[in-house]
């Protein structure tokens, strides 16, 4: 007798707490090992640091229990683990270079987690955000353009991607990607029918109508403007990738992806030919090991090659915490934290980190599949993708798979804006996943006598 048996939905908060304990142990142990590796002593601050991180994580856990009790239990522990490992590496580099990045990163972690908790508390339903679709667009455009503004904008290392407000430097593009995801999700969920309408078919590919190309051309123009005006290949790639992915999610038409990729490829090639700094990036990538690129005083491949040396030094198992020389690589704590980690934790550690990211984004994708409303699907899918894509662009750049760009590795790398933005993304994913996994009250088994299988109920004969 096959009947549909209602199964009590496991909220997973206990699992989350257990995994959090593991994640915290990972971060604190890494911190302690840094001390043992460099000076054969457990660092004096390990207790305070451990208690601080534990306090923050438990507070976050409590907020999730309170405000999003059905949220995905894996997301938060993964992020805490990545954040902790990043902090340990930044601390390790501080010891080698005499800098104080770790303290600032710890403060930024606290601020970010508070902000993420605030987002979870304030935002009771992610659909509220849909009301702010066009506000989000304006915010995104202002954020993207802000580094070009005369007073607050700053050029650091040739890239004009910084603003300085009240003594704090920020990379607004990091925050812009959230606003853009909200805008795209709102815009696309409204216009997806128009966009999906059959256009002419050429060679079996359904092309969109020309007038529907409007938005994609605008975003294409904006991301190329970022590339050219702000000299920031990474952000440009990221924003464009986000848009194309979400467009594909909304329309299910691969032609958008092909058109997008072609347009971006053509634009980037044109930029490489026309603008010397973009072309130099490509040269430094293709001929990284050549003496001319390596010895160039600016814009050469010195940093990339030093990062490769670091990765090679790590080999299969790594040198161990505190026993490599990641400090030789310029920007080892931010842009090149992947090569620092690859050197000291080896390929084994690097693959483990990549798998953490993979699980994190797949959990985001699962959330998108599970949630019922189109806006939530697009937003969760877009946010999960942009995180994965950012990791791809950074790690691909450091391992010389693609040209090097100036993006940060989410949660691992030093940088306040990046931490802030990615923790907010996590809060949004937690919020949407709570909705996705929450049992629908209207679909109680008693009220669905035959065949009404709610999404959250898994079927099967006992």
């Amino acid at each position, binding site marked *: 007798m096959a009947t549909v048996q209602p199964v009590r939905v496991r909220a997973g908060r206990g699992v989350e707490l257990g995994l959090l304990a593991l994640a915290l142990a990972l971060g604190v142990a890494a911190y302690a090992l840094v001390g043992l590796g460099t000076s054969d002593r457990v660092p004096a601050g390990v207790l305070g640091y451990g208690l601080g991180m534990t306090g923050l994580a438990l507070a976050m856990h409590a907020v999730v229990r309170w405000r999003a009790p059905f949220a995905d239990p894996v997301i938060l522990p993964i992020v805490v683990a990545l954040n902790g490992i990043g902090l340990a590496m930044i601390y390790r580099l501080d010891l080698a270079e005499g800098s104080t990045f770790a303290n600032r990163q710890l403060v930024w972690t606290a601020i970010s987690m508070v902000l993420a908790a605030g987002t979870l508390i304030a935002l009771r339903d992610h659909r509220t955000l849909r009301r702010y679709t066009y506000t989000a667009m304006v915010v995104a455009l202002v954020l993207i353009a802000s580094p070009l503004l005369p007073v607050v904008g700053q050029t650091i290392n040739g890239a004009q991607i910084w603003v300085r407000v009240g003594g704090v430097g920020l990379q607004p593009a990091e925050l812009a990607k959230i606003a853009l995801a909200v805008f795209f999700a709102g815009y696309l969920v409204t216009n997806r029918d128009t966009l999906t309408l059959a256009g002419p078919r050429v060679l079996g590919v359904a092309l969109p109508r020309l007038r529907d190309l409007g938005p994609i051309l605008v975003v294409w123009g904006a991301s190329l403007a970022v590339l050219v005006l702000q000299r920031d290949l990474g952000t440009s790639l990221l924003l464009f990738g986000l848009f194309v*992915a979400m467009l594909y999610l909304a329309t299910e038409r691969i032609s958008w992806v092909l058109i997008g990729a072609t347009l971006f490829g053509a634009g980037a090639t044109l930029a490489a030919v026309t603008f010397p700094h973009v072309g130099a990036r490509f040269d430094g990538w293709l001929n990284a090991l050549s003496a001319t690129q390596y010895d160039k005083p600016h814009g050469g491949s010195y940093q990339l090659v030093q990062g490769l040396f670091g990765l090679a030094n790590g080999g299969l198992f790594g040198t161990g915490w505190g026993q490599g020389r990641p400090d030789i690589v310029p920007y080892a704590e931010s842009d090149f934290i992947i090569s620092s980690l690859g050197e000291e934790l080896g390929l084994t550690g*690097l693959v483990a980190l990549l798998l953490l990211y*993979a699980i994190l984004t797949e959990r985001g994708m699962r959330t998108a*599949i599970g949630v019922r409303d189109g806006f939530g699907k697009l937003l969760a*899918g877009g946010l999960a993708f942009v995180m994965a894509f950012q990791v791809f662009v950074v790690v691909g750049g450091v*391992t010389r798979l693609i040209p090097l760009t100036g993006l940060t590795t989410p949660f691992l790398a030093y940088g306040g804006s990046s931490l802030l933005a990615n923790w907010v993304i996590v809060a949004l994913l937690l919020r949407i996943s709570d909705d996705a996994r929450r049992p629908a009250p209207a679909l109680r088994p008693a009220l669905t006598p035959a065949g009404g299988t709610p999404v959250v109920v898994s079927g099967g004969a006992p």
Partner: protein
Amino acid sequence: MNTPLRRLASMVLVMFLVLIGSATSVQVFQANRLNNDPRNVRTLYREFGSARGPIVAAGTAVASSVPSDDPFRYQRSYAAGDLYSAVTGFYSIANGASGLESVENDVLTGRGDQLFFSRVRDLLTGRSPEGAAVETTILPAAQQAARDGLGDQQGAVVAIDPSTGAILALVSTPGFDPNQLAVHDSAAAGAAYTALAAAPGNPLRSNATRERYAPGSTFKLITAAAALSAGYTTATPLSSPRELALPGSTATIQNFGGESCGGDTVSLADALRISCNTAFAQLGMDLGNDAIAAQAAAFGFGDDSLTIPLAVVESVVPTGLDAAQTAQSAIGQRDVQATPLQMAMVAAGIANGGVVMRPYLVATVRAADLSVVSQASPQQYSVAMTPANAAALRDMMLGVVQSGTGKAAQIPGVQVAGKTGTAQTTQGAAPNAWFTAFAPADAPRVAVAVLVEHGGSMGNDATGGQVAAPIAKAVMEAVLAQ
């Protein structure tokens, strides 16, 4: 919208797989090339930053890494200064490495394939990896005796245990102090290197293994060996004119100092004992160039792949010579050239009943936990003579020391077999003095070759018997005293 989400999720997974592939490519497949890139300072830091294994002679470290307070963490130190420079070579940040420091680098750093299991254990136990110790076959007393004997003279000494091939002494003078090159101050190390590279006698190059010299009369051992294998006996009379006119040329061969060899004929044994040039030149012409070259090759001449594990430059006997050239080559002149190590191998082969053992310098490689990683086992290198012929040649060599040119090598109570050599080099320059010997003759424990360039302290008046034999004697005594 779930279908594109699933596809996107799959694409994201593919992206991560590509990243894992890319990281693997860099960290595994390209790692070797990147690690060996000359621009990679990590390789230096890593090599110098880990405890490099010591090079040991008879239980005492002659090269060792001691902790230092600079970024490299360890300083290579050579306790005995220049005594072992021909053995250890140097290990320098600025100038690379030479000698055992270079050829045994993999085990000294602990990176060698033989040390794979040690590395895995270090990885699992969290112990910082340490290099393995290279234990040499050098006998410090013999090394010291050789060094003392050469003193300020340019030359080389090689002593071998004839029954195993173990090298007991390996000295080249002028040597150098590897400590000067091992300093971490690149400028000072570079200056020391430049000075040594330009110094007379080329101290950085080992005379024992990397330089060739005309072997002079010590080569008569090979001519005599060829004669014995051609059916001659020790008593076979050889024609020994005061002056031998060479066919097809205006040149003549005379005896040392223009003296007679004591008659118109002389026995093979006496010819060797008094080192009669004319007799051996005629003998060479009678035997022919091919027979002599073949005998030399049987002792190791012409082997360009010999490593001890230091690479040894090959010794040369030309082939295709005419009669006059053959006559000159039979007494170790003309284009015959040999390393001191090669001449030690000749003596060792005769001492060992005609069997030349493969010479080796590394007895044991021992991991940091004192487990044996590899151990040398004596290997036969070649069979150069029959036991009977070797015994006959040994008896003739005994005559050299008892009543011939090599009396300076006599050791009371020990039968010493030897052969002197005094090789003219360039016109007007003082001759190179040679002595090669082994002892005790009935049960040899040491074979030795000594070369003193340009007559050493005696200049033009030098002979092998006067200059080189006493050094050989001292080295043999040092070995026999053990």
